[in-house]
């Protein structure tokens, strides 16, 4: 079974590399390489540092009882923000085509963030109260 994964994986990857080679010139391959390395650096250096600092900040300033809720809320909010970056920047907008990117994305993003915050606080307060009630019994 393991050999199947290794052999099929190898063949499929070689096919992909060949397709990549066929579709590109040396110049555009270099551009692909720049994007590949930039993506990894953006995650492994920039995003990972931000997340580590956020984790450190939570450990310093957020009381343990609600720490999990804060972490969870931030993970969801962060994932949505990364997913929405292209619509938030909106560089694809074209003056002749108002049906493309038709919404006020910064405002909508803010509303989504507020909704996530409110839901997180409500869930945290509700479960916190339940836990406190259970403690007093």
């Amino acid at each position, binding site marked *: *079974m393991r*050999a199947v*994964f*290794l052999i*099929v*994986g*190898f063949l*499929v*990857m070689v*096919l*992909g*590399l060949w*397709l*990549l080679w*066929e*579709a*590109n010139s040396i110049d*555009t*391959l270099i*551009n*692909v390489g720049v*994007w*590949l*390395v930039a*993506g*990894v650096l953006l995650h*492994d250096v920039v995003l*990972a540092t931000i997340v580590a*600092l956020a984790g450190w900040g*939570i450990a310093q300033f957020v*009381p*343990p009882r*609600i*720490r*999990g809720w804060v972490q*969870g809320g931030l*993970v*969801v909010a962060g*994932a*949505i923000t*990364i*997913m*929405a970056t*292209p*619509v938030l*920047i*909106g560089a*694809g907008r074209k003056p*002749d*085509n*108002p*049906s*493309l*990117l*038709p919404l006020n*994305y910064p405002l*909508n993003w803010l*509303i*989504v963030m507020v909704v*996530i915050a409110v839901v997180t606080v409500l869930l945290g307060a509700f479960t916190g109260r339940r836990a406190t009630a259970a403690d007093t019994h």
Partner: protein
Amino acid sequence: MGLIPQKPPPLPPLQEGSFSSRLRTQRGATLIGIALAVSVGLCFLTGLYSHLQQHPVEWLPIPALPTWLYRFSQGLHVASGLAAIPLLLVKLWTVYPRLFQWPPVAGVVNAVERLLIFVLVAGMIFQLATGTLNTTQWYPWQFPFVPTHYAFAFIILGALLLHVGFKYWTIRRALRTDLAHSAPITNRPEPEEDFGHGADDDTDDTESRTPPESAPSPVGGLSRRGLLITGGVAVGAVTVTTIGQTVSPLQDIAALAPRIPDIGPQQVPVNRTAQAAGIDLLSVEREYALQLLGPDGEVSLSLTELGELPQQDVQLPISCVEGWSASALWGGVRIKDLAALVGGGEGSTVRVASIEQNWPYARSELQPQFVGSDLTLLALRINGEVLDADHGYPARIIAPNRPGVLQTKWVQRLEVV
């Protein structure tokens, strides 16, 4: 004194124990990995189907029915790709200590494995980033998007299968352990997997040395299960805020979707406007005539003559490769009837040419199953109105189960072969 901002303490050196989070476990990484593999697999299959639509092969013809198939598959393609974003982020966070493995390379097998993981991670980030940018028609790069996206689909799938092959016994072990007792992921070198015979060894004592997660944790914060649930909630949140671009009942909550199914000329979105296509509407108004070519010769039809042919209404979606779709009531003349005027019949193929020039998609081909379908029209109207210029006035193709980019607009000529 209190006003001076406190510097964060220097990051600890990357030694054993630097990554102390008890949330990073083999089982957590495996479960998130399985969810990620499912979304990547769906993305791959639906992407392959879309590729087949645009590069048809004779031995596997695309059916004309069900009408909604492409709408469904391409909506799923973009939705599963977006869902992979939070899953990839949680997965990478979970295995992040492995980036700092020390010594960096432990043997040849380990070196190959780490190189392949770079390909997998870089490829995944590349594919998800460029794919998401594509849905907003933003192309800040020089490489050709479509064939490069296609190539990376195979590179990623291959690297993923190889990754599973390399981690085979680790994955199997992790699936047999419960989350509380799962081995932590650290930057310590892992025992190299046995590539020889019978490595299904359950006596590995890593698990037994791992202290179980104490509940509740003294430092608070997410539990191991909580992390996985959070990943699921993030997938849900990403989906809910975008899926309305293709599931129109949910369009009112699609706060972050690049398209809304009822925003556009005549309440239908547009990908390429008449202006972008360089359509000269004045000359179209003055002198438009559809050219029909076929085995029996050539026929030219004015808009008035097209209007006098038997008309048909069909409810069909425009389904874009970029993941949005919108249903509309189209009115016009059946392609089948037009083909018959110049000697076309059962098994005819129709080549479509647009007024637009110099665009790769200005021409398309309707295979026999689409020509033969009663639902395939040369549409003159949308929702009861004459087509807007941006929807392809004076005439466009609308056929079931097709990508929008093949529903050629501003049709000038139909050639029956």
